[in-house]
């Protein structure tokens, strides 16, 4: 790749152009003409992936606010994978549910743009704009099924509370700017490191406000309450997308902001995040046990997973930082696939996401049941899946940083969480199909391809994690 000042934004631009192309194609589409709009999007995402690989190890930076360092590129790759899988699952769902294809894919792609921007931004203002881009797109995607009151409700709740949290986030940026005179993370970091400001309440309040904004996006307790509603109300494939992509992007920015700009204040923010992490792990797990709706159960599970990721952030040693990256990837692939199964099981009129809808799935659709089992085992952190390596890595980071309490709580909650993942497995294998239920829906080819691909990745990460772990370690070595 040529060295130009714009290198760092190339991955993002690929996706932007794909989104624009999708919109144009939709505009000029004949009334009943079929177009592979999703395919267009995948082309753009692949372009983003290729350009990310070319940018690897080059530390490109554009406009001073977008940095394509390895950390950002690793997350970008994760987001591309999430995007590709989502589009593949969507291709089945969009046709089945009669969703507006052009708008749908354009919004997914724009959301990915926002996520990539957030992961590579080096400026609080850009992070905020990226946050809004992805949030707006996801709010609309949540409510894209206009005929479903649950979806409309979920979208609206998500939107209102998201706006509320954005206000805090913006306030935090303003305070930070007021103290340091800049929104660039490197300058803020340098400024804070140079002055001894440990007693300044202003900067602490700014950190607190930014923490609130991030905590909302990663649905940490007590900023999580929108999560179960939004996840349950949204179409399953969108839920898979937002539970992984938004979380990955928010975590990338969270890590970058707190471990670069606010690193001098880690003594101050670590205890607070400790509290959030513990509350998040415990609540996500315990309430998850009582759920009877699989989507809702997975919503609580994803809350808990946010807690595990926070553990890595607190540990903040090299292992911890690399663990965050690895965990994000493992969690993203697994969760997208799990929601993909739910999406594929649904029909236009019924979501089929209650626990009993899974009864006897093994007898009707053995392949789907087996794939779902792998996803659930990976979420539960059982070897030899991606989830196990991720958890092991996170907890060993916590232990080696001396956070024994976190490790104990983390292990305990993940042990308990297996209980509710396995409940679905039990339903699928050890129950007879409820005679009142319709036979499980037929699954389209593209969706199945996406599922099998995710499973391959899950096992790859679980059995041969070394390559990816090295990449993750390489990613954090260049920054922080």
């Amino acid at each position, binding site marked *: 790749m040529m060295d130009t000042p714009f290198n760092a934004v190339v991955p993002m631009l690929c996706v932007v152009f794909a989104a624009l192309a999708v919109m144009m194609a939709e505009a000029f589409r004949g009334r009943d003409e079929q177009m592979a709009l999703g395919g267009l999007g995948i082309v753009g995402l692949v372009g983003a992936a290729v350009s990310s690989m070319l940018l690897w190890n080059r530390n490109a930076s554009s406009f001073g606010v977008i940095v394509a360092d390895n950390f950002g590129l690793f997350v970008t790759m994760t987001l591309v994978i999430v995007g590709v899988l989502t589009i593949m699952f969507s291709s089945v769902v969009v046709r089945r549910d009669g969703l507006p294809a052009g708008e749908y894919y354009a*919004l997914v792609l*724009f959301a990915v743009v926002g996520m990539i921007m957030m992961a590579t931004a080096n400026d609080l203002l850009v992070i905020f704009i990226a946050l809004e881009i992805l949030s707006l797109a996801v709010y609309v995607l949540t409510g894209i099924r206009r005929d479903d009151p649950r979806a409309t409700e979920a979208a609206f709740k998500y939107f209102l509370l998201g706006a509320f949290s954005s206000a805090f986030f913006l306030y935090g940026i303003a305070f930070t700017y007021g*103290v340091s*005179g800049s929104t660039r993370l490197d300058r803020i970091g340098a400024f804070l490191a140079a002055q001894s400001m440990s007693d*300044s309440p202003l900067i602490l*309040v700014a950190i607190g406000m930014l923490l609130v904004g991030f905590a909302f996006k990663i649905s940490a307790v007590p900023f999580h309450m929108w999560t179960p509603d939004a996840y349950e109300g949204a179409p399953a494939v969108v839920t898979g997308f937002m539970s992984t992509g938004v979380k990955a992007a928010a975590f990338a920015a969270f890590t970058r902001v707190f471990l670069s700009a606010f690193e001098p204040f880690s003594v101050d923010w670590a205890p607070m995040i400790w509290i959030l992490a513990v509350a998040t792990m415990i609540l996500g797990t315990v309430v998850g046990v009582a759920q009877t709706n699989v989507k809702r159960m997975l919503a609580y599970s994803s809350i808990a997973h946010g807690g595990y990721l926070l553990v890595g952030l607190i540990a903040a040693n090299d292992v911890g930082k690399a663990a965050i990256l690895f965990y994000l990837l493992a969690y993203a692939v697994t969760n997208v696939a799990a929601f993909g199964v739910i999406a594929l099981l649904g029909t236009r009129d019924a979501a089929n996401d209650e626990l009993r809808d899974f009864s006897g799935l093994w007898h009707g659709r053995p392949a789907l049941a087996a794939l779902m089992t792998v996803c659930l085992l990976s979420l539960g952190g059982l070897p030899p899946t991606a989830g196990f390596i991720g958890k092991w890595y996170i907890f060993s980071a916590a232990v080696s940083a001396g956070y024994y309490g976190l490790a104990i709580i983390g292990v305990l909650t993940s042990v308990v969480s297996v209980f509710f993942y396995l409940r679905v497995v039990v339903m699928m294998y050890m129950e007879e199909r409820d005679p009142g239920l319709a036979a499980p829906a037929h699954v389209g080819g593209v969706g199945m391809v996406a599922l099998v691909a995710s499973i391959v990745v899950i096992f790859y990460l679980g059995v041969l994690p070394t390559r990816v772990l090295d990449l993750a370690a390489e990613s954090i070595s260049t920054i922080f």
Partner: protein
Amino acid sequence: MPETLIFYALSGFAIGASAMVIGQRNPMYSVMMLIASFGALAGLYVQLDAPFVAVAQIIIYAGAIMVLFLFVVMLLNAPKEDGSEWDRSHPLRQPAVVRLGGLLASLLVVQLGWALLSARGLGGGVAAFGDAETVSSVRVLGRVLFSEYVFAFEATSILILVAMVGAVVLARREGEGS
């Protein structure tokens, strides 16, 4: 001294108007109060030597956006908020709970005030940026916007595009486009 007086008057007015926006039952009045609040904010910007921002505030917010709001309110023809759905027996609707919310909000205000008051003399970083003269200059503002913040500026266009697409999707009538 008169500057301080004007400042307090304007901020008091802005706060009062904002409170009335929430307090009004009639959406039309709410919109009007919002315009008043924006006007007061514009006054504050003038006081801060930022006439450009003040004018932009009036033109864009108080002007364009509020007109749109008014149209929407009138088109929906909702003279009053519909209060019939209030379920007063719900445990979270009890006065005590509502008061707790109020208490939390005022606590937040106190905290912010506390933080700002105890942080006098800080903000050296901002002061270094330039004196009032330069900050208020449209020319300088334009330069900064298209050099230092050019990416943020361009990225905003994507944000607006997403918002437009979103509005189209949500405004589409059911069953269309399938």
